[in-house]
């Protein structure tokens, strides 16, 4: 029985890891390129979740299509936000950079609360895939979708960074902005591009959130806090590290919830113990580099 519980717990951890990796990799890409931690990243996920939810409940758009639309909508919003004000913050002191995205986060959360009340909602869509039965262990269909789409997003991002010209330029702007300028790269365009990709992945991740979690204005906060832990584990700016961090974190969380008495109430406490421990041992994260620190 104990071992079934263990396998069940680890499998569920793996599916949430897909979601975490998708969210954290967007966050870490934005940081790696611009040097700004986007504290409002979770709010883009939250808005994506609400959009997918309303598209299904009010208009009847199937969740998978809703996800794509949410992704596009959040890309557009990211564009607006970047050109509207984040681009002006890039040259300012770090406290202003931190404050700018925190301000955006507070603004979006409270607008959501005013518009949709703080209540939690559930999307009543039928599961997109049949549940997967492995012996005694059952993985719900929607969790499978989350895993598959999450991994697809993550893999797509890795592919984009490694095998396209824009990805190459993004990496150059991240590694050495001054050299990038000398090489004739429009660095501001690259900064914008990183936020557009971040917005896209956040919007699609929002659709995944609507599939397996409650849709409510604070859902982004919960997720982005975990993304911080993942990014601290994997190294700020390292997309490769984000997947490893996501798997480690969700395994640790699910194991705590399953085996520690009362561990379910620890929530993202696990994430923060991890953050503090990792940063103490290796100040730039397990797989991070010194440069951006």
């Amino acid at each position, binding site marked *: 029985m104990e071992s079934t519980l263990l396998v069940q717990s680890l499998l569920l951890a793996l599916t949430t890891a897909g979601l975490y990796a998708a969210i954290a990799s967007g966050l870490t890409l934005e940081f790696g390129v611009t040097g700004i931690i986007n504290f409002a990243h979770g709010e883009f996920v939250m808005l994506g979740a609400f959009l997918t939810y309303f598209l299904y409940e009010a208009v009847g758009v199937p969740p998978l299509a809703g996800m794509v639309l949410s992704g596009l909508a959040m890309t557009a919003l990211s564009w607006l936000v970047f050109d509207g004000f984040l681009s002006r913050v890039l040259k300012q002191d770090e406290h202003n950079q931190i404050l700018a995205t925190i301000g955006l986060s*507070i603004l*979006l959360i*409270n607008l959501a609360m005013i518009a949709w009340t703080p209540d939690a909602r559930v999307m009543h869509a039928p599961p997109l895939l049949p549940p997967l039965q492995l012996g005694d262990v059952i993985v719900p269909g929607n969790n499978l979708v989350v895993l598959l789409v999450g991994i697809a997003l993550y893999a797509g991002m890795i592919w984009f960074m490694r095998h396209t010209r824009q990805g190459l330029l993004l990496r150059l702007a991240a590694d050495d902005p001054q050299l990038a300028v000398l090489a004739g790269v429009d660095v501001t365009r690259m900064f914008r591009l990183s936020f557009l990709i971040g917005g896209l992945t956040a919007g699609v991740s929002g659709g995944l959130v609507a599939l397996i979690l409650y849709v409510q204005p604070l859902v982004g906060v919960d997720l982005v806090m975990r993304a911080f832990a993942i990014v*601290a584990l994997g190294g700020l700016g390292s997309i490769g590290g984000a997947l490893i961090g996501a798997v480690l974190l969700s395994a640790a969380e699910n194991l705590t919830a399953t085996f520690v008495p009362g561990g379910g109430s620890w929530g993202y406490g696990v994430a923060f113990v991890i953050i503090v421990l990792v940063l103490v041992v290796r*100040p*730039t994260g397990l797989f991070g580099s010194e440069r951006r620190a």
Partner: protein
Amino acid sequence: MKTGLTRLLPYVLILLVTLALVWIDKPFWIQLAIGVAITAITALAWDILSRTGQVSLGSAAFFGIGSYTLAIFEPLIGLTLAWVAVVVVCALAATLLGLLTLRLRRMYFAIATLGFALSMQVLVVVFPDWTGGSGGIAPPVLADGDPRWQLGLIGLLLLAAVALSDTLLGLRFRPAFFMIRTKPELAAASGVPVVHMKIFAFIVSGVLIGLAGACYGGLYGYVVPTDVFTTNWSVLPLAIATLGGMDTTIGPLLGAIVLKALEEVARSVIGGTGYQVVYGAVIILFVIGMPQGIVGLLRKAGKLAGRRTATGEKKKERERHA
């Protein structure tokens, strides 16, 4: 250098406003003033820490630790010693966090301090025998629940915070803090005890925030973890100090007044849910419009009025640091 008169201005204003409010005895204004004073103390404390280059998102940890320490120790060792315990525990927590985060730079520091604050909240929920868990805890009521005396006491703490901030902006500390913030290697090479100074700033900041938290808990004699450990108490000090003007004493004071006033307006217009939208809007407008805060704007206005030339200001600034 500032003249003696402008230097005394904040003290006189705080004293006069506090006394006037106690005299008039209108509950709404007293509650508002208490709110402003508590947030101003946390903002001053945050600013003191930031002067050593440590941009923290962990103020809520100390705010909560302060109120919880008072509540836990008061039945054990009495009220007076419990206040001493608040100072000691906050100083210890600040030393611990300061040492842990000593090597962390910029964003890593911000995330680690944020993580510390949030793990504190979880810690409280995980050990309910000591802390009352998510049900909350009852710190002793401040000044027997008389709002006028509460305002008086918190006003005194604010005066102390202002005095501390001014002292640390004085000739003895400011140059060292400035060097640690801008060129830590140079600071170390020229004999500034970088580690000691950073930890010292952490302790001063942590104890001040802890005392403010203990006062806050004593307002109603009841706190829950989501009230004092909320990320709000980490963000507010940063927002207020930045909006008012960092590296000054008057900045956090002005910022607290402006932000709290706006909050009251928003609360009456929007209602209890979502009124904090005003924080978000104000923060974004300020970061775009006046990145140096209110004080920066006033200085610029002063410059435009022709009292100082741009280079003269720079030179004076340099003389002040030299």
